[in-house]
């Protein structure tokens, strides 16, 4: 046997293209599994397209369709759709289509600003709380619980009735209320991530706490963060509309969808449908679009988790 046995030395030349264990190396998997999963997901695509259309409408629309949204024209009030006003005019004589665009701008800006602010702060807060653990974690999370115990809408109402609301002011207020959920989400994620061996490995190399958090924990928690950010955009837009609907939103001449709805309701019984349906439809469409995207991202992440 030994004489006939070729052994590894005499086993012939290596097979070209098949180095040791080369299987997966020769066929790299999709480099960006998220992007691939998103592209193949109809809901995500629908959400993204809808968001793009609404953004285009709000930001590029005014360049093509110029309207005066500052001066009151009572002579042009309550015109039904037609003529120079495709969606008619409201009680102050503002063009409804142009006002939808202006209102959308502030809604989208607010939503994105709140999402970015809360995500950045909430993520860091949650990541450090989870990484530090122990007493620091307990204190930090009790602070979150305390904030959560404050009824958000009531606080908002008090604040806006005390101070004249401005867009940055409302962004700040809404951010104060909504950084809590990303903080909790990320903390939970980090609690499971920090026991993983790659975190210990980073510590073994002498990596510092901030390095571990920023380089390893936050990128790995990015999935939940992005999903929550998407939902935050939708929530903030709804919240602003709620405030405006209650008459406590941005003061005139600022436009926003919630205020338009309130204004329209007064005249709904007069048959002025064009004052209610357009802002309602675009508001719903925006919220639905962001929720679709968030849902799809969530699913895409789940798939990724199953794969690894």
């Amino acid at each position, binding site marked *: *046997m*030994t004489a006939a*046995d*070729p*052994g*590894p*030395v005499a*086993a*012939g030349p*290596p*097979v070209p293209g*098949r*180095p*040791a*264990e*080369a*299987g*997966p*190396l020769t*066929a*790299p*998997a999709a480099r960006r599994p998220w992007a691939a999963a998103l592209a193949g997901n109809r809901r995500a695509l629908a959400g993204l397209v809808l968001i793009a259309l609404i953004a285009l409408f709000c930001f590029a629309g005014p360049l093509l369709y110029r309207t005066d949204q500052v001066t009151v024209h009572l002579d042009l009030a309550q015109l039904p759709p037609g003529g120079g006003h495709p969606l008619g005019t409201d009680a102050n004589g503002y063009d409804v289509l142009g006002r939808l665009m202006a209102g959308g701008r502030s809604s989208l800006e607010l939503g994105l600003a709140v999402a970015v602010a809360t995500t950045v702060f909430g993520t860091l807060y949650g990541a450090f709380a989870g990484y530090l653990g122990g007493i620091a974690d307990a204190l930090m999370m009790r602070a979150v619980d305390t904030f959560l115990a404050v009824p958000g809408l009531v606080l908002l109402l008090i604040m806006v009735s005390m101070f004249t609301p401005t867009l940055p002011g409302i962004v700040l207020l809404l951010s104060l209320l909504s950084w809590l959920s990303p903080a909790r989400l990320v903390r939970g994620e980090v609690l499971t991530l920090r026991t*993983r*061996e*790659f975190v*210990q*490995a*980073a*510590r*073994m*190399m*002498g*990596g510092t706490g901030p*390095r571990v958090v920023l*380089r*390893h924990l936050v*990128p*790995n928690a*990015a999935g939940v963060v992005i999903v929550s950010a998407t939902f935050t955009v939708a929530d903030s837009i709804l919240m602003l509309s709620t405030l405006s609907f209650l008459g406590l939103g941005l003061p005139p001449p600022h436009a926003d969808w919630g205020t338009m709805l309130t204004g329209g309701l007064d005249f709904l019984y007069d048959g002025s449908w064009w004052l209610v349906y357009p802002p309602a439809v675009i508001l719903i469409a925006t919220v639905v679009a962001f929720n679709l995207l968030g849902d799809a991202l969530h699913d895409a992440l789940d798939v990724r988790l199953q*794969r*690894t």
Partner: protein
Amino acid sequence: MPPLLDVRNLTTHIRTGRGTVRAVQDVSFTLEAGETLGLVGESGCGKSMTGLSLLGLLPPGGTLVEGSSVRLDGRELVGLPDRELRTVRGNDIAMVFQDPMTSLDPTKTIGHQVAEPVLLHRGVSRAAARERAVEVLGLVGLPQPRRRLSDYPHQLSGGQRQRALIAMALANEPRVLIADEPTTALDVTIQAQILALLADLRARLGMAMILITHDMGVTAGNTDRVNVMYAGRIAESTGTDRLFSRMRHPYTQRLLASVPRLTQDPALLLPTIPGLPPDLADPPTGCRFADRCPYATARCRAEEPQLDGTAEHRFACWHPVDGPAPAEIGGKVADAVAGAATGGGEGAAATTGLAEGPAAAGTVVRPRAPEPAAAAAPLLEARGLVREYPLRGSWLPGRDRRVVHAVSDVSFTLARGETFGLVGESGCGKTTLGRLLVGLDRPDAGAVTLEGTDIGTLRGGELRRRRRDLQMVFQDPFSSLDPRMRVSAVLREPLRIQGIGTAREQRARVAELMAEVGLPERGLDLFPHEFSGGQRQRVGLARALALTPKVIVADEPVSALDVSVRAQVLNLMKRLQAAHGLSYVVISHDLAVVRHLADRIGVMYLGRLVEVGTAAEVHRRPAHPYTAGLLAAVPVPDPAQERAKRGAGIGGELPDPAAPPSGCRFRTRCPLAQERCAREEPALRSFGPGHTAACHFPLVAPAADSPSDVAAGRP
């Protein structure tokens, strides 16, 4: 009379996003009552899928292809409507799954879960089903079965859970029991108990059994016949004795040769099977093993061999071998290092497909310290290490302060270039000890010194610099690499953190590391999930090497890997050690792995080091009954030896580490325990040079006038 189970041309296809995976291809075998058939092979070879296909339990997208036939007592199961198939599942054919942690519903009581199949299939009353549950739980050796009925799975230990799972499978007295890796998740000692239980039950109940396993040792002692599976097909099928002594398929030969054995010469490298099983969505045209086979010829790549041969020994190979490979087939450690030095770099040699093949013969003295009792100062020393974890809530007033004694008074030394192996069952504190050694955790008492410096007193920058000398290789290659980092970033990170070199130098070092562990340089741009388990473990080794450490602590470095890949990683560790003069602390529950790597072995039991000695000595002349029991429990890939020792080994399970037994902690499971063991804690005594053990009634005579108590540093 037809055989009890007759499987013909079983072929399972699974439709996935990547195409059709031919998971099981043309598998035929028979099974008689009272017989055990082993299904062995690497993971992904279709073993489990074969088991599931018999029951019609296919994953989404799975179908049994036309022509497949499974006959139970002459009754065709393929094509039966689901309603009728359900009367077979869990009744005539039952299954025991691998992982006792996930196979039981955590929200239902054990009694409910064991009674469930009885209720489903027998149409008896709830009370009668409960009675049956008590009966089978007793049958599988669960202590006090009636009291266990209302327990939830988390209240049972891993071994008890596996017993409960077996009880569930047995509740309806199945005629065929399919056990899918029933002991893989368990400790060797518990594994031996469960395997003995299965053998006993099979004999008493006259069941037929299909044992699916990747462990050649388990196969040897517990099967009558074996089907070796490769890439969804049967590669070889014969009686167990014949398979181990006169195998014909090169895959069987290599698979068996790559298993580390207790009796093996550690100076030899393990023979490995290079490469990975083929992608079953796109199987090769010829013999599926051809790419990894040392004997493959053009014919093998062109034409697929059919399962052929005599009725009692069938194999599918164009160039069959005859019997096992010689031990030297893997080559020597020294040769591999020499070959790497002279033969144009290890990277090239390692990536050619036969990584460990020596490129140039020649004898080189191993650059290691073979004498563990060297007079020189130890590189790493652990002195009286204690680590205790308080139990949850024990700081509250009015509650007892209960602590888990993870590590109790452990002392040992590690010399330069030496490998110290730590073995013990899970829960014995060996992982905690490893974390203490590298400074990931701080001891409550005692100290770890590296070249005379107590690493516990280091802080800040000093500690960071010292970390370079102490690195760790982790157990799970899936969680030890950050999934969001490319391999190049993973390997550069230690250099960045330590501020070593410029960006260009770091890149060069990273490329060098890849070559050193035998991975191609283009792997640097990939993410960890694009690698196989063995490749990931190589990346883990490369990362540990990046800072040129003096000591590497490897916690179960190969336990998550397949046998053939395991051998590759073990060989790589040996080669790296010889090339760099590394010292290792290897932590493993697998005595054979430790025996293969280590110069000296420490056996841990419930937080204590109960025996320390040279690897050969501990293996040949164990002094502590626990060591002897562990050695006996290791499955040996030799049918005769394995059958001879059935039922040997250690009974019982590890006691609660929060309330360790008085005196000798092992006494509750020790066959030799006497009253003195409960009263008096045994001190470490000498059993020869460098060989100590803590036992009142050792298996070998202690050396005269042993300076035990002084050495152990105990009062």
